[in-house]
């Protein structure tokens, strides 16, 4: 019976064809020999291909867009023409091969600035011989954005000596510094006039949010600004300058559509105008837009509202500051009455009021989704980080590459009659691992990084330059279609908490505000719940009482809360209270 059953089962199996043992062994042998031969051929081919290949390229070809303004004298409408060009940026070209004696690692996000940093760092072995008498190689460890925080924090928690240099998102500074994982640089800077001079070459905002902990406390310099980034507004120039659309808009709202850069900045362009414009341009398929019949729905605006990482925190934060409110009081740790104040609720109501004019996937919109809807030519305006804007101006990726412009974000005329223009900063500093054997070498690299030649390459390759005397040059402002907006936006940047509990504070914020945007709770409830959660997190952490004075926000200095509520310039943060 058993034999019969097995036999039946065998017959029912998928392997219907039967092979003899000899045939099977023969076939297996042939396959094995084939695989070995193929492997040898491929290996040898690969070896010779590699050996005969050219030495590593020292030049990087970057497709860029050059913007020039054209228009006959006296012409009322100025047209901005953006054309793509391909440039070859010399990033290294070391004249001699230098054999490295020491290798340090630089951990960075895997994106254009990270790759560009690696290309620029190729010149460091030669430069380090001149500077310190040793050839030092800086090896990049490029880590995808999605996992970089986990990778860097777990590596540092294990007290690893490498990476010597690391990119920290601005809000990680507190958790890395308070945990003792990154170096306080003041003792070294005090002995080095070159570094002292360097500090004066950054805008106040960049020092406050990229380089100090607590924000604005220059007694704790914990990093140097590396990749600057800000959010700007990208709009469709063809729609904003279309005569019929302009006429209709004026008839409906009683004022002109902005049409040139100066109408957005330094003019007092208001967030409420953004909403008017978004409302005006929101059209259904079949409606007319700029003289053409729409085949698909067209949207007014795409702003960041995703739950991912800090997507909505940065955009809602921007609106919150413009409405004259901040997240907390960094001196006392107080939250109640601040993040759920009347002004904050109004700010959230305004943020939510943009939804009817947004694409249907508004709850998932971050940099990628905002770019996608603009590149498809289905939205009038988006907000996005300038670090992610190159593809908007790329003819291969964007249908509207030649019909868009990037301008600074608007502000808001508050209930106290003050016009506030602030935005939440992006970008990252570079820090030195406290467990590294080579902190002095890392500082030499930082000095090398800020030399004019490297900064020029950085700018030309698309990096976010942080040195203000470069940012403010006409050369830099005209280098890309978004550099002017970047340069003008730097001075009004603020940031949220960079305390060790930032991740919990951020998650609570993302959850509560996202639930509000999804219609699961009203703005007041969302911010009340948020205030309670933030209070619990801050109290459980013991801020500020359990923190030593040097790790708290100094009470005699102006905090972002003081500055925002008073409507003072962002550069006042960290300045002595009068």
């Amino acid at each position, binding site marked *: 019976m058993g034999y019969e059953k097995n036999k039946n089962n065998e017959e*029912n199996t*998928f392997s219907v064809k039967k092979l003899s043992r000899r045939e099977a062994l023969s076939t297996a042998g042939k396959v094995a020999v084939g695989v070995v031969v193929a492997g040898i051929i491929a290996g040898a081919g690969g070896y010779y291909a590699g050996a005969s290949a050219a030495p590593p390229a020292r030049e990087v070809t970057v497709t860029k867009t050059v913007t020039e303004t054209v228009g006959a004298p006296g012409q009322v409408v100025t047209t901005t023409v953006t054309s793509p060009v391909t440039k070859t940026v010399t990033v290294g070209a070391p004249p001699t091969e230098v054999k490295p004696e020491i290798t340090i690692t630089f951990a960075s996000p895997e994106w254009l600035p990270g790759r560009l940093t690696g290309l620029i760092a190729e010149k460091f072995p030669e430069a380090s011989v001149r500077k310190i008498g040793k050839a030092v190689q800086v090896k990049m460890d490029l880590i995808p954005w999605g996992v970089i*925080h*986990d990778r860097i*924090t*777990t590596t*540092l*928690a294990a007290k690893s000596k490498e990476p010597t240099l690391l990119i920290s998102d601005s809000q990680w500074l507190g*958790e890395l510094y*308070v*945990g*003792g*994982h990154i170096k306080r640089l003041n003792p070294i800077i005090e002995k080095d006039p070159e570094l002292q001079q360097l500090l004066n070459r950054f805008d106040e905002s960049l020092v406050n949010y990229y380089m100090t902990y607590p924000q604005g406390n220059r007694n704790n310099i914990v990093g140097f600004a590396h990749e600057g980034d800000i959010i700007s507004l990208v709009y469709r120039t063809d729609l904003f300058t279309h005569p019929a659309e302009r006429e209709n808009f004026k008839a409906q709202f009683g004022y002109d559509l902005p049409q040139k850069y100066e109408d957005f900045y330094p003019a007092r362009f208001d967030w409420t105008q953004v909403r008017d414009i978004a409302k005006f341009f929101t059209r259904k398929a079949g409606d007319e837009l700029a003289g053409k019949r729409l085949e698909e729905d067209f949207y007014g605006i795409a702003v960041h509202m995703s*739950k*991912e990482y800090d997507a909505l925190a940065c955009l809602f934060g921007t609106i919150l500051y413009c409405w004259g409110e901040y997240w907390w009081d960094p001196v006392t740790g107080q939250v109640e009455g601040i993040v759920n104040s009347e002004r904050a609720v109004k700010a959230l109501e305004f943020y939510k009021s943009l939804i009817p004019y947004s*694409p*249907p*996937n508004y*709850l*998932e919109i971050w940099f990628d*989704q905002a770019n*996608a*809807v603009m590149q*498809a030519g*289905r939205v009038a305006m988006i907000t996005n980080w300038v670090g992610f804007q190159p593809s908007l101006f790329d003819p291969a990726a964007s249908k509207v590459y030649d019909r868009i412009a990037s301008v600074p974000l608007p502000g808001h005329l508050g209930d106290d009659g003050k016009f506030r223009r602030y935005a939440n900063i992006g970008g990252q500093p570079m820090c030195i691992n406290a467990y590294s054997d080579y902190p002095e070498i890392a500082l030499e690299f930082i000095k090398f990084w800020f030399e004019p030649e490297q900064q020029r390459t950085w700018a030309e390759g698309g990096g976010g330059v942080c040195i203000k005397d470069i940012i403010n040059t006409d050369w830099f402002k005209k280098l890309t279609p978004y550099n002017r907006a970047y340069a003008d936006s730097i001075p009004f940047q603020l940031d949220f908490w960079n305390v*060790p*509990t930032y*991740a*919990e504070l951020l*998650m609570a914020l993302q*959850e*509560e505000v*996202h*639930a*509000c*945007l*999804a219609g*699961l*709770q009203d703005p007041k409830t969302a911010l009340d719940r948020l205030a309670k*959660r933030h209070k619990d997190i801050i109290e459980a952490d013991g801020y500020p009482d359990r923190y030593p004075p040097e790790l708290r926000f100094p009470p005699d200095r102006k905090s972002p809360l003081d500055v925002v509520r008073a409507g003072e310039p962002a550069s006042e943060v960290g300045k002595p209270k009068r």
Partner: protein
Amino acid sequence: MPTRSINTFSIFLIVPALSIVFFLVIFPLFWALGLSFYSYNVLRGGLPVFIGLGNYGKILGDPYIWERFVITAQFVVASVVLEFLLGFALALLFYQEFKGRKLAITLVTMPLLIAPIASGIFFKYIYDATFGIFTYVIQSSIGVKINMTKDYAMLAIVLLDAWQWTPFMMLFILAGLEAIPKHLLESSEIDRLSRFNKFRVVIWPTIRPLVTLALLFRTMDCFRTFDTVFALTEGGPGAQTELISIHIYRVAFKYFRTGEACALAFIVLVIIILLTNLYLRMVRREAS
């Protein structure tokens, strides 16, 4: 003597495997259990502070964590039930002989070969309310624009899980069906049993152990589902799909509250062990 030498040799052979299991599984498990009684933040450094059952008390008294347990339970029940029903239907379908059956089975089991994180990303694009094919098809066919990840987020993650894991359930049930002795089926035909009675008396008793095993595996798996849901909704909107596994990840690797994360992981482990015992008891009872 030979017996003794064989025993020594056997022990020698299994020492490497046992060492790996001890150092990579058993020791970390007990280490984590120990840490769950301490207040410790691995990133903040400092010495762990013994707080006894403090972490457990904090977790069990936290309404936000209870919310996540409820969400996880909803997800587990909905997913496992849906996968069981669909898997059963597919197994019954593929139990019949028809042309192209083997190809159809291969195609249906394809989702099992896809990495869960990739499935999550695929579905994020498929469900996208502006450009997604799902939205487009629904709108074209019934004229309604559905935003799955906003309005039906729980359904969206359950459907994704069912898409990926129904074939697994189907294969188990199909294996059970294939194992039914042909003569029993023939006898039931001769005895003119109704379809229901044929299922109750002949089919179900044979496939029940495999179905229970499949349900056990899927329940355990659903409890620790992370990647698909994280990639698709990241727990949103708000915290509507924030499973306990996602919360543990955040506590452990975003907030670095190491002791609390260990305690939470052990609570989930206990729940899974209890469920496993429940299932196994059911199987044993049926067997006896």
